[in-house]
C-alpha cells in the first residue's frame, strides 16, 4: 500500500532521516519504534507532506507522494493523527470532525461517516457540542483519531498516541488502536512505548538516529535481547 525507498528528510539544514526504506501492506498494522529524537515524527510528517523529503521516493497505491502538494495527500487515503493530538481547541468536537471531512469526497459522505464514528466512539457523540480543548486527554485522543477517520482513509498514521497520558488512559488508547485495526484500517504507528505497541502491531521497524536499524515481526522484535534492554527496560 505504502512504500518508501531511500528517503532523506529534515528541517532546514538539519537532516533527521537517512535513506529510510519501508513498506506497509494493506490490512497490516506496522509500528516504528525508537528513542526520542530518532526521527519517528519526522518520518510521519514526511509521509503526510508536512515536510518534503530531500531525496528518495514515497508511493501510496501507485501515486507519487513526493511531488504531491501536502493538502492533496489526504485524498490518497492517508490520514495523520499528529503528535500531541493537535485538535482545534476552540472548535467544538463536531466542528473538529467536520474539519476531518473537509475534502470534497469526504464531505459527500459526511453524515454516514459521522454516524459510523459516533457508533465507534459513543463518548464523542455525548461531547459533540463541547469545545475540544475542554476534553480529557483520553477523549482528545479519541477525538483526534475520529477526526482522522472522517476523511475515510485507508491508512491511518498515529504519532505517539500514548504521549502525555496517564497509565490507565494509555491502556485505553491502545484499545482504541486495536479497535480501528479490527475495523479494517491499515495502521502505521510511531511509539516510544515499545512494550505496549509491539502487542498491537504485526510488524515493526526500529529507527535509530534517522536510520532503520532493525525490522521484523512484532513478536520477534519483542523477544530480541537488544530491544528488550534498550527500549523495554528489561
Amino acid at each position, binding site marked *: 500500500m505504502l512504500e518508501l525507498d531511500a528517503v532523506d528528510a529534515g528541517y532546514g539544514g538539519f537532516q533527521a532521516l537517512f535513506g529510510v526504506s519501508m513498506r506497509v501492506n494493506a490490512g497490516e498494522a506496522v509500528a516504528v519504534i525508537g528513542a526520542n529524537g530518532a526521527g519517528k515524527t519526522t518520518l510521519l510528517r514526511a509521509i*503526510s*507532506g*508536512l515536510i518534503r523529503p530531500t531525496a528518495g521516493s514515497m508511493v501510496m497505491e501507485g501515486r507519487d507522494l513526493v511531488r504531491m*502538494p*501536502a*493538502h*492533496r*495527500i*489526504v*485524498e490518497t487515503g492517508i*490520514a*495523520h493523527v*499528529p503528535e500531541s493530538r*493537535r485538535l*482545534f*481547541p*476552540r*472548535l467544538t468536537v463536531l*466542528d473538529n470532525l*467536520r*474539519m*476531518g471531512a*473537509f*475534502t470534497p469526497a*469526504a*464531505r459527500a459522505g459526511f453524515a454516514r461517516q459521522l454516524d459510523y464514528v459516533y457508533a465507534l466512539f459513543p463518548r464523542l457523540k455525548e461531547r459533540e457540542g463541547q469545545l475540544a480543548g475542554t476534553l480529557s486527554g483520553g477523549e482528545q485522543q479519541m477525538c483526534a483519531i475520529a477526526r482522522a477517520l472522517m*476523511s475515510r482513509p485507508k491508512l491511518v498514521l498515529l504519532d505517539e498516541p500514548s504521549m502525555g497520558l496517564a497509565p490507565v488512559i494509555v491502556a485505553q488508547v491502545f484499545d482504541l488502536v486495536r479497535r480501528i485495526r479490527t475495523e479494517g484500517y491499515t495502521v502505521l504507528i510511531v511509539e516510544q512505548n515499545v512494550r505496549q505497541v509491539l502487542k498491537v502491531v504485526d510488524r515493526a521497524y526500529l529507527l535509530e538516529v534517522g536510520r532503520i536499524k532493525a525490522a521484523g515481526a512484532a513478536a520477534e522484535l519483542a523477544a530480541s535481547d537488544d530491544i528488550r534492554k534498550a527500549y523495554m527496560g528489561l
Partner: protein
Amino acid sequence: MDCQLDIFFLEAILNGLLLAGLLALLALGLNLVFGVIDVVWICYAELVMVGMYGINHAYKGGAPFLLAALIGIVLVAIAGAVLHLLVIRPVLDTPPINQLLVTGGVLFFLQAAATMAFGIDFRNLGIRLGSVSLFDMNFAMARIITFGVALATMLALWLFLRRTYLGTAIRAIAQDRQIMPLMGVDSRRLYLVTSAIGGGLAGLAAALMVLQYDIYPQIGLQFGPLIFMICVLGGLGNMIGGFIAAFIISQFIAVGSSCFHTEWGYAVAFLFFMLAIFIRPQGLFGGKG
C-alpha cells in the same frame, strides 16, 4: 458644558448607536484578517477609500447605485486578495513589525496614488436619502440603512463561519495553521479567500459610507485610527469583542459630541481607550475568540 437629559441627548445616543453599526462593520473585516492570518492591515481604511472612489466613478459613469456598490465590493475584494499575494505573503513568516511596516507603506502609497489620480477635492455621489423624524429627533435615512446592512452582514458572516466547511476551516486555521494540510485544506488558498472576504467587507463599508461622507484621499485618516482603537479595545482578532467595542466607542463619540463639542467626542473616546488599555492590555474581551 451643555449636557441635559433631554430629547437631544436621546437623539445623540441613538445616532451613536447608528454610527456603531458602521464602525462595527469596519472593525469586522480587520478583525477577520488578523484573527485568521495574524497580520494587521494598517491600510484597511485606505482600502475603504479605494472602494469609495471606485463606487463614485462607476456611479458617475452611469451605473445605478446598487451596481456601482457591487462593483466597489468586488474591486476591494480583489484589492484585498492582491494585497495578500503581493505584500503579505512574502512577509508572512517574518516578525510582526515587518508586516506592520509593509502594510503601513501600502497606506501611504494608496493615499498618494489617490491624491495624484483624483486630486484633493471632496467628492460625493449627490444621493440624498432624506431623514426620518421621530418626535423632535431626526435620523438620516443613510445612517439607518447603514446600520441595518451592517448588522445583516455581520449576521451573515457569523452564519458563514459557523455553518459552512469553508467558514469552519477559517476558524480552524486561526487556531492551528501548521496542521491544516492534514485536513486537506490548502492554507494558501484559504488565506487568499479570507483576504478577499476582508476586502469585500471594506468594499461594502465603502458602499455605505459614500451615502454619508464625502470622498477624499485622506478619509482613511479619519476612520483608520478609530477602527484600530475599536479592534484593540475589543481584543484584536476577537470579532464579537470588536462588535461590542464599536458600540462603546461610538457612544463616547456621540454623547461626548453632544455634551461638549464634536472634537471632544473623539478626545473622550481616545482617553477612555487609553485608560482601558492600561487596565486590560489584551482588550476588554481578550484576544482571538
